[in-house]
């Protein structure tokens, strides 16, 4: 006799809603999150197409461009033809900087750099933080103690000061600055993951897997971690904003990106003395940093609310 077990079509037969579709729905209901995502979308497009959008090489002085008018002055204010700047003068939407480079081109390339900085440092911190946090949470005991006390020590220092100390040891430079910011943000992720792992470890489905003979790897990486992801996403999104801000601060102090790299913090730092004589050189990089950080913060806040099951009926 042959019997066939009817196959369950879980997707269609059950009226289930996935976490992601709920989150998306809730996220799009929040105006501030939409605003954040819009800015972020624009930034991503700019970052991807900076080499097409930028009218000039961001590291090249106008003096090195053949046929460029020799009357050019450093720190020229913006010249926009549509707003009455004489047509015989080359157009510079945001003016020229102290080394006679096109500020607009530098700002566009800076978007690319800032996004890469934010994503790279947070990815680095999340990977290490997750591994440490999950080990601490899952095994407990002396493993937990050893890892979390080191994290406590890291947290005891003001993060920017610690980053400055690390860069001072490693030497100034963009990569070292990224490493420093990555290191100082590890504890935040380790804590979040440890907390989630601690609570999920005790749930029934984990006990079930354990009683079915699942090994540590399976339990930790297939059962626990996927369910600990939600707070990590929120923390990560907000963390990108902090990372961008910290790297701008390091570059402002001359410890991050080195000239002629078009990094917003470095641009701001280089022209800080010209705040009254050439305000455009301080205003636009500052505005760019502010908007980017704002976008990530709004998105992070939105995600937190959208992913929080306790707020399910609020919206």
């Amino acid at each position: 006799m042959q019997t066939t077990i009817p196959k369950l079509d879980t997707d269609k037969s059950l009226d289930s809603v996935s976490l992601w579709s709920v989150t998306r729905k809730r996220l799009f209901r929040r105006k501030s999150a939409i605003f954040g995502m819009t800015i972020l979308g624009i930034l991503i497009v700019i970052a991807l197409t900076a080499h097409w959008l930028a009218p000039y090489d961001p590291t090249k002085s106008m003096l090195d461009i053949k046929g460029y008018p020799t009357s050019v002055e450093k720190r020229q204010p913006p010249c926009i033809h549509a707003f009455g700047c004489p047509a015989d003068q080359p157009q510079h939407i945001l003016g020229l900087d102290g080394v006679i480079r096109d500020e607009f081109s530098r700002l566009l390339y800076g978007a690319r750099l800032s996004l890469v900085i934010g994503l790279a440092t947070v990815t680095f911190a999340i990977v290490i933080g997750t591994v440490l946090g999950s080990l601490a949470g899952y095994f407990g005991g002396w493993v937990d103690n050893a890892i979390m006390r080191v994290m406590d020590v890291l947290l005891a220092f003001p993060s920017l000061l610690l980053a400055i100390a690390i860069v001072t040891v490693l030497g100034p430079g963009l990569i070292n600055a990224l490493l420093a910011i990555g290191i100082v943000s590890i504890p935040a992720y380790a804590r979040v993951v440890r907390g989630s792992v601690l609570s999920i470890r005790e749930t029934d489905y984990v006990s079930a897997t354990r009683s079915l003979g699942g090994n540590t790897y399976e339990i930790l990486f297939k059962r626990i971690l996927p369910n600990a992801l939600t707070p990590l996403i929120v923390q990560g999104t907000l963390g990108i904003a902090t990372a961008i801000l910290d790297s701008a601060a390091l570059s402002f102090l001359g410890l991050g990106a080195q000239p002629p790299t078009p990094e917003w913090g470095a641009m701001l730092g280089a022209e800080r003395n010209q705040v009254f004589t050439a305000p455009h050189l301080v205003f636009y990089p500052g505005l760019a940093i502010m908007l980017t950080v704002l976008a990530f913060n709004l998105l992070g806040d939105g995600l937190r609310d959208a992913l929080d099951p306790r707020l399910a009926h609020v919206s």
Partner: protein
Amino acid sequence: MKRNLLHVLSLLVLASMLLAACGPAATEAPAATEAPAAPFEAMKVEAPSCDYGGGMKSIEAVDQYTVKFTLCAPDPAVPAKVAFSSLGIQPSEYLESTGGTGELLEHPIGTGPYMIETWERGNQIVFTRNDNYWGEPAKSKTLVFRWGTESAQRLLELQSGSVDGIDNVGPDDFDTVKNDANLKLFPRQALNVMYIGMTNTFAPFDNELVRQAFAQAVDRQRIVDRFYPPGSEVASHFTPCAIPNGCAGESWYDFNVDAAKALLEQAGYGASNPFPTIKLHYRDVVRGYLPDPSVVAQDIQAQLKENLGVTVEIDVMESGAFIDAANSGSLDGLWLLGWGADFPDVVNFLDAHFSAAAFDSFGKPFADITDNLAQGAQLADEAAREPFYEAANNAIKLHVPMIPVAHGGNAAAYKATVEGAHASPLSTEIFAVMGIPGQDTFVWMQNAEPISLYCADETDGESLRACEQVTEPLLSYAIGGTATETGGVAESYESSADLTEWTFHLRQGVTFHDGSALDANDVVMSYVVQWDAANPLHKGNTGAFEYWTYLFGQFLNAPQ
């Protein structure tokens, strides 16, 4: 239980108060030294021979008001040198009582128009008028020195009226100051030089062809035109032309990219052997010779990329570490530094950098430069010196130890109501002659805080300027000028015909701020503690006494 705790606490408080009361009084004014009743015992310090390598043979007090210097070789620049602020005269008793350091670094005692009242570290220095000054008393009762590294901040303070004068107006703010009826700009003559150093002990700059190539690959005119304030000029020679014999010899190379490329090829660099990535070191410190360091560094970086295809990495260093590394010749690649005139003689520029006794900044010295400098320094007549400085300048052009870039114009700014306002080309502003009618206090804001106020052992212009208000050397420079005058503690001087013996006659009746009288022994002592490395008072702040070696060569009893 609680009562017991209270008792213990109050006992502890009482005990600590008692301890504090029994301790030594925190502030005790240095006791005025009584004029010695004993007859004047003249001091004399003499080198056993001139073999020790320095320029000074002996320093002696001939009588109570006469000092005589005997030199190992003729030196026509002695009057200009003894007017320099590192040679301010302090009481010998005070030098001895401080042990040559400690209190001396904070509280110099001089004969000048101002004396130190307080130095609040990190905040300000307050000077008060010396009412017993031998000359014209200071116009303002109180003088305050403040500092701020950002030019925008200094200008803002001047505009808002919280300070009366500021140093180093930002290059972009010249017009702002000129267009403001309440302010007045005082440009300084460009008596300085900014150069791109190359240490010849590091590859690839150990190759003279490479150095010559770089000398022609940088468009210096473009740097001066775009990044220097009005009043600046491209350096045709290391020494500014305003200094006699500064511009003897050929002018610097013209900007010529093709010649530079050909030289690099000749040196063996090309498609098969690309030029290595080099570093450009500098400190982010604004000086009259380098008003916008990072911008100039980035333009040189861009020019070398464009003109020679050479990749330059910028390395911003901490100021003190940078100067140490530059002086010891340990900077590889290129580096940006400059020099401001201390006294208006060509030796102040050339000998301080390229003589045999100079620092090893540029690596190994070149005999055809050092020989000519040694001979030129011994002559008094500028016409007779000319052939030697012509040869030295031509040799500098040939060997390219560095690329002279610019003589930077810079300026101080004052409120328009300030009487006696001036800017000195040597950066030695004298505030005793400045004042605003009806105002008791005059506030000056400069770039940075002085390091110490014992200027025999300081080289930093911010420290020297503070000392100049308090201590006086034998002679002085004209206010706002460079000529040597008898405005110091000596009222006259003469030299022997061969320029090896110099005699200075001191003013009589001059008193120090502590009330003691000035005599020739104070002068001898103030000099000897700098000259004699074995003197127990040869301590200072770091013990380097760099300006003594600039001025008179090797120390007596220098450690081997």
